[in-house]
């Protein structure tokens, strides 16, 4: 019952969060995830819409003039549109129960610079020093402001690109048929689901107090598709040698990336600062981090080796 352990139990969240200084010039309002481009957009499109719009009313006025003048059909249209508006309201209210839309929006608040930096980090994580996510008033900063934050844009795009590249690879070997695309996508998604369930089960069994949410986990596990795409493309261009070289490089990079990222989330604060802590609890957490990181190269190989001949 050491005091450090009790203190750790009392504060389940990692206390060493970095507070972003409020007066940062680049961030207008960190709670606003997306830039407000409404004014410039309406100005730009308004001029373009007018000449295009002039054609339509003239064409549609004549045949529909008689139709719309009828008061009964007017009422029917008004009723129909109000019904549609009610339905849309109902869907909007209830969709939040099943899919956490506002939480998902955070993971898609990215910009080009973030994507570029993150992709560079995924293939070369060795020089990056500071892996901690910045916080602003207890909520993590949006990905566009911090390169360490997880996002779902890169995993989603990489997954779709992986399916397309798999189709391309199969096509160059005369093995393509359209249902194979669905099979590849389904297989990759099934492995992702198994991984997420296995990691959630392990986190529950080892009683880790972490703020690693399920969506975060999906984001981290989706980063391996980037390496897989690179490997398969090199395999298409340069044969098996290119495939093994690039896949080997991406496997090692993803391994290092996952360890450095998950160490901050799963392991206790002391271990996160680099001090190796001996203790059964931290050892189990270290094993879990290593196991998760080691599963990534294995799955990257398993999902791509049949595509490169």
């Amino acid at each position: 019952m050491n005091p450090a352990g009790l203190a750790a139990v009392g504060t389940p969240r990692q206390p060493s969060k970095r507070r972003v200084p409020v007066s940062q010039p680049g961030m207008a309002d960190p709670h606003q995830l997306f830039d407000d481009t409404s004014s410039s957009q309406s100005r730009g499109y308004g001029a373009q819409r007018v000449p295009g719009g002039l054609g339509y009313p003239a064409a549609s006025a004549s045949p529909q003039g008689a139709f719309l003048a009828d008061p009964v059909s007017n009422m029917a249209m008004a009723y129909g549109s109000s019904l549609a508006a009610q339905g849309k309201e109902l869907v909007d209210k209830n969709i939040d129960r099943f899919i956490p839309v506002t939480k998902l929006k955070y993971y898609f608040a990215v910009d080009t610079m973030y994507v570029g930096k993150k992709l560079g980090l995924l293939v070369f994580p060795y020089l990056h020093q500071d892996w901690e996510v910045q916080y602003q008033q207890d909520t993590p900063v949006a990905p566009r402001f911090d390169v360490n934050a997880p996002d779902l844009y890169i995993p989603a795009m990489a997954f779709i690109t992986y399916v397309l590249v798999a189709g391309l690879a199969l096509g160059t070997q005369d093995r393509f048929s359209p249902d194979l695309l669905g099979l590849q996508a389904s297989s990759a998604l099934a492995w992702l689901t198994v991984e997420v369930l296995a990691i959630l089960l392990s986190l529950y069994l080892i009683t880790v107090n972490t703020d690693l949410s399920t969506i975060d986990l999906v984001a981290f596990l989706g980063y391996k598709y980037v390496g897989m795409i690179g490997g398969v493309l090199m395999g298409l261009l340069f044969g098996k040698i290119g495939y093994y070289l690039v896949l080997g490089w991406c496997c090692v990079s993803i391994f290092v990336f996952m360890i450095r990222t998950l160490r901050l989330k799963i392991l206790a604060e002391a271990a996160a600062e680099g001090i190796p802590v001996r203790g059964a609890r931290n050892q189990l957490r270290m094993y879990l981090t290593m196991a998760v990181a080691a599963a990534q190269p294995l799955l990257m190989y398993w999902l791509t080796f049949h595509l490169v001949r």
Partner: protein
Amino acid sequence: MAFTLYSLLQAAPLCVNAIALLHEERFLKKIGWGTDQGIGGFGEEPGIKSQLMNLIRSVRTVMRVPLIIVNSIAIVLLLLFG
């Protein structure tokens, strides 16, 4: 590798059925995994074994009714479509 989402969908009821089958009195107590034996004092953190026992007991309690429904649907579908 024909590991698809559908095979996951087939495996899930099988696995949950397997956990729900473990009888509390006839089996779990015999191997020392009964839930009344496990929970000791208020230790700082429960070990893996007690977490597992809790998990098995909660799965058995929570999934009993949904499993009845899912199994019935599976039986009907397999009888109809093979």
